[in-house]
């Protein structure tokens, strides 16, 4: 996902067009003009409203679109977003590349001048694909120190590196700062605050808790973080539901959740994911803190 300087982005996409698999330089996001059986690398210079709907099928092999029958369109994509605001939640699994204004302009003439070199690279890359296709398919490369989408991107890039542990290892370095940013983002969001409140309640060994109580603790945490926002039980319920914690009517006091072993384990797992501070040390004697 490219952002930043537009001339630089056009130049970069043109260069990528020389050394990627079945590259197609496209001026828009239409998929109907693209031959599906070529599995092209789509290098798109202009994002438009169609991208949001196409992110999932482009990104995840196996998810088809309906276009004169079911079509698989997944494949590598580089997209210049520019000022266009994408809304899809699938965006977070993308690799972001800010295009610096200092890039040299790579022109069609440069392409012609380098034709021999480009052909050599294409031939070597093809041999690399053919020789390593099976190894890439069964690769279980992982960087457990990364989290969330950074870990997924690291897996994708690292799986494609065969017999070069040095290059493979550098994938983790590339994604380190992105991972740190998203950890901070995750841990300061509303989801994280609500999970932190639920962790507190788990540690109090409460059998059940009302939404109002969760909201009260979450609001105290927000105040600690100098936020003026106040969460209402209804909003707490909606956020909890999104995370798989579905409330029910507990008693005459209203809705809430039972903190059974299963729910406490899930709350702790979510707490680790969101980087909840109190789980770094853990509570001595809490079985879930020990297991997480």
């Amino acid at each position, binding site marked *: *996902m490219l952002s930043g300087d537009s001339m630089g982005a056009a130049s*970069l996409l043109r*260069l*990528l067009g*020389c*050394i*990627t*698999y*079945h*590259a*197609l*330089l496209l001026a828009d996001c239409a998929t109907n003009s693209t*031959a599906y*059986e*070529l*599995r092209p690398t789509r290098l798109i210079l202009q994002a438009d409203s169609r991208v949001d709907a196409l*992110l999932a099928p482009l*990104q*995840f*092999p196996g998810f088809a679109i309906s276009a004169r029958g079911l079509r698989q369109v*997944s*494949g*590598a*994509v*580089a*997209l210049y977003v520019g000022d266009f605001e994408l809304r899809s939640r699938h965006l977070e*699994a993308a*690799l972001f*590349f800010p295009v*610096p204004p*200092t890039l*040299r302009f*790579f022109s069609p003439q*440069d392409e012609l001048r380098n034709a021999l070199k480009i*052909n*050599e*690279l*294409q*031939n*070597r*890359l*093809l*041999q*690399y*694909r*053919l*020789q390593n*296709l099976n190894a*890439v398919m069964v690769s279980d490369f992982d960087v457990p120190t990364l989290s969330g989408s950074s870990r997924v991107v690291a897996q*994708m*890039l690292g*799986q*494609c*590196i*065969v*017999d*070069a542990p040095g*290059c493979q290892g*550098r994938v983790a370095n*590339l994604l380190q700062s992105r991972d740190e940013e998203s950890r901070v983002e995750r841990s300061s969001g509303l989801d994280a605050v609500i999970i932190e409140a639920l962790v507190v309640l788990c540690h109090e060994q409460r059998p059940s808790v009302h939404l109002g109580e969760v909201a009260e603790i979450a609001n105290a945490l927000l105040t600690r973080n100098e936020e003026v926002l106040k969460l209402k039980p209804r909003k707490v319920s909606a956020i909890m539901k999104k995370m798989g914690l579905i409330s029910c009517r507990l008693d005459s006091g209203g809705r809430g959740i039972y903190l059974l072993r299963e729910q406490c384990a899930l709350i702790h797992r979510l707490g680790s994911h969101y980087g909840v501070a109190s789980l770094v040390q853990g509570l001595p004697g809490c079985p879930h803190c020990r297991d997480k």
Partner: protein
Amino acid sequence: MKRDRDLRDLVKLYSDEMKPVPTGGKKLPDGSVLEVVRNDVTSKVELLHWEDGESAISAEFFCGGKRYVPSHEAVHLKWLPSGASSYLSTRDLFEELQAFIVLGLNASSESATQLAHFCLASFFGDVIALF
């Protein structure tokens, strides 16, 4: 009469089987792989068949009773390999990609590394998810 019908069925079956199957690259049931390449003398798009580390190039390939031909759409691809050639080692290939990016764009080494990863991964877009 029945003999004529049998013969017609046989001809239909044969012509169905021999109907060209356009492909932009495919892993075949026998484990071999087809890829589209461009003949660097005639500029025609052809198929490269890869099996057990050996490659052969031809205008069409027969496998499992099917006749594979290059997808017509492949002519729209500006850059296609003309064959498969040795890349020495993964590290050499990776460094070659980085050098091409640095030279072409005057990009920083970190940017070139990131883009080289993308290029390499694009060759496996059918088996991994990449965006």
